[in-house]
C-alpha cells in the first residue's frame, strides 16, 4: 500500500539512499523566470529552479496548481512563453533540433503509461534506441532486457501492453524511458492511475532508480516516497512555487500557511 509508508516514516530519515556527492554537474536543469499562459489563463508564474545532477526533486501540490504543466515544460511537451529553461546546457526554444536533443536526454513516465499498444513490450523499449540512437537491434534488445530485468518483468518481454496489469505497464514505461539512457527522468504522477496494490511495485522501482544516482523530477502525491528519496520537496500552488525544502524540514516544519494547510489535508487521514 502506498500510503502505509506515510505513517511509518513521518519522522525517520534513515531510509534515504546513499548520495554520491563526487563531481556532480551543477544546474543540469535551470529554470529562470519562466511563465506560461493558456490563452488568458496564467498557469505558471515566474518559476525559478535549479536542479543539480543526481538531485531528486519531488513536486507536490493541490490539483490544478500547475505541477504537471511545469514538469511537461522541461521536455517541451508544453511551451513556455517567457523566461528560460536550460536542460543539460541546451536552451529550449522553438528550435526543433534543440528540442529533440533535450528529449533524447530526458526520459518521461506518464500517469497513463502511454505504452504503444501495437508493439510488444520489447519493441516498445527498442523503438527509440533503434530509430533515434541508431543502436543495432541486437544491442538494443539486449539492453532492453537488462532494464526489463531491473524493473522485474523480463518474462513479459514478448507480450503486448494490453496483456499486462497497470503496475506492470508502468514498470515497462519506466524501462522504456531508461533504454534511451537518459540523464534526467521526469515522472508525471506515475502512480495516480494505479490500483493501491500496484503502487508499491512501481515505487520500489523508482526508489531503486533514485538509489542509482539518476537525476529525477517527480510529480506525485506519494508523500512516503517523497520522504524516502527526495533531496528537496517543492510545493506548488496557483502556478507558483510556494515553498521548497528538504523533506524532513518540509514535513515537520513547513513555513508557509498554504503548505501547512495542504499537508494537513493529505496527512490527516
Amino acid at each position, binding site marked *: 500500500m502506498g500510503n502505509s509508508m506515510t505513517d511509518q516514516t513521518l519522522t525517520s530519515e534513515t531510509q534515504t539512499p546513499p548520495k554520491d556527492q563526487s563531481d556532480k554537474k551543477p544546474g543540469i536543469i535551470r529554470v529562470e523566470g519562466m511563465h506560461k499562459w493558456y490563452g488568458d489563463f496564467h498557469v505558471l508564474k515566474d518559476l525559478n529552479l535549479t536542479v543539480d545532477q543526481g538531485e531528486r526533486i519531488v513536486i507536490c501540490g493541490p490539483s490544478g496548481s500547475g505541477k504537471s504543466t511545469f514538469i511537461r515544460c522541461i*521536455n517541451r511537451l508544453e511551451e513556455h512563453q517567457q523566461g528560460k529553461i536550460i536542460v543539460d546546457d541546451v536552451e529550449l526554444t522553438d528550435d526543433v533540433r534543440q528540442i529533440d536533443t533535450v*528529449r533524447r536526454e530526458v526520459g518521461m513516465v506518464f500517469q497513463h503509461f502511454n505504452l*504503444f*499498444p501495437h508493439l510488444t513490450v520489447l519493441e516498445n523499449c527498442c*523503438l*527509440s534506441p533503434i530509430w533515434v540512437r541508431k543502436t543495432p537491434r541486437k544491442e538494443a534488445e539486449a539492453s532492453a532486457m537488462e532494464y526489463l530485468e531491473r524493473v522485474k518483468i523480463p518474462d513479459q518481454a514478448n507480450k503486448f501492453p494490453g*496483456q499486462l496489469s497497470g503496475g506492470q505497464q508502468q514498470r515497462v*514505461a519506466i524501462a522504456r524511458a531508461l533504454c*534511451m539512457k537518459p540523464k534526467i527522468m521526469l515522472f508525471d504522477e506515475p502512480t495516480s492511475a494505479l490500483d493501491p496494490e500496484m503502487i508499491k511495485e512501481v515505487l520500489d522501482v523508482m526508489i531503486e532508480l533514485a538509489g542509482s544516482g539518476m537525476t529525477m523530477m517527480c510529480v506525485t502525491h506519494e508523500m512516503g516516497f517523497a520522504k524516502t528519496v527526495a533531496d528537496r520537496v517543492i510545493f506548488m500552488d496557483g502556478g507558483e512555487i510556494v515553498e521548497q525544502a528538504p523533506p524532513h524540514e518540509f514535513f515537520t516544519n513547513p513555513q508557509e500557511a498554504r503548505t501547512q494547510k495542504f499537508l494537513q489535508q493529505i496527512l490527516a487521514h
Partner: protein
Amino acid sequence: MKKQTIDTRPAGPKPWNDPRVRSLFFQAIAIAFVFWGGWVLVDNTLSNMESRGISTGFGFLNETAGFGIIMNLVPYDATMSYGRTFWVGLTNTLLVSAMGVVAATILGFIIGVARLSSNWLVAKMALVYIEVIRNIPLLLQIFFWYFAVLSNLPSPRQSVDVGGALFLNNRGLYLPEPLTQEGFGIVWGGILLAIAAVVGIRIWAKKRQLATGQIFPTFKVGVAILVVVPLVSYLVAGSPIEWDIPALKGFNFGGGITIIPELAALWIALSLYTASFIAEIVRSGILSVSKGQTEASKALGLPNGLTLRLVVIPQAMRVIIPPLTSQYLNLVKNSSLATAIGYPDLVAVFMGTTLNQTGQAVEVVAITMAVYLTISLLISLFMNIYNRAVAIKER
C-alpha cells in the same frame, strides 16, 4: 454445474415459457416466410413470362449484338455476341473503379492529413473541399464535369496541342501510343533487373540496420534505380519503341490512345467525391490515436515524421480500414452512374442496351447483380485480410 450424477435442477418451465423453445418457434416462422416469399416471386415471374411468350435461358448471350460501343478494352465490334458486350461493360466498370480507388485513396489521405495541419490556410482549404464535395449529389458532380467542363473544350480542329503529340478537345484526350519494337525484351530485362535490385537493397538495408543500426535511404536509392536502369537498357537496345502519334483525320483524330470525356468525367467525379469521405475517415483515424501516444513518442526523442510513421499511422490504420472498405464498395457501385453520361460501363452496356434489345430482363439483371456482388465481396475479403494483419493484439 454441480458434480452429481443425478440432475437436481428444478423442473423445466412450460414449453411456451422456455426461451429456447420460443426462439426456435419464431425462427421457424421467419424461415417459412422467407421461403414462401421466394416461391411467390419465382412462380409469379415464371407465369408472367410464360403468358407473354418470353423464353428464358442464357442462349441469348451467343446471339449477335449488332450495336457499337464507344470504348472497349477487349476487342469488340458490332458483329460480336451479347456475351462479348458483357465483357466490354465489365472491363470498363473495372477500369474506372480501379482508377477511382487509387486516385480517391491518394487524394483522400492527403486531404485528411491536410485537414489536421497546424497551417491555418491548408486546414481550412481541406475543410472547404470536404464540405463542398461531399454535400453535393454525385450525379450532379458527374454532370458538372461532363457537361460544364469537358464539353466546353474546343472542337477537334481547335484542339489544345501539347508538343504536337498530345491533344485535348471535346472528344477526349489523345495520347501517343507506345508500340514496342523488336529488341524491347532488353528493356523488359532492365525493368526486371531494377526491381530485383531494389528488392535486394531493401533486404540488405534491413539486415544492415539490424546489425549496425545504420539507416539506409532505401526509398531515394530505389527510385533512382527504377528510373535509371530501364532508361539505360532502353538506350542500349536502340530505343525500341515507336510512338503512334494521334493525328487529325477529317473531323476527328485517329491513332494513339484516346481517353474519352465520359471516362474522364466519371473518373474525376468519383475520385473527388469519394476522396472527401476518405479524408474524413483518415482524419478520424488519426484523431482516434490518443494524444498520450504522440507525447510518449516525442518524449522518447522521436521526431515528428517518425512519430507519425511508427506510432500514429499503424494505430490509425485499424480504425481507418473498415470504413475505407465501405467507401471502396460505394465507389464501385457508384460507377454505375456512368449510364447518365453514356460511359459504356456494365450497367449502360449490358443492363441498358443488351437488356433492351434482348428483353431477357431476369437473366441480365441477375448476371449484373451477381457481378457487383462478387466485386464487392472480393474487395471486402481482401480488406478484411489486410485488416487482420494490422489489428492490435490484446489478451
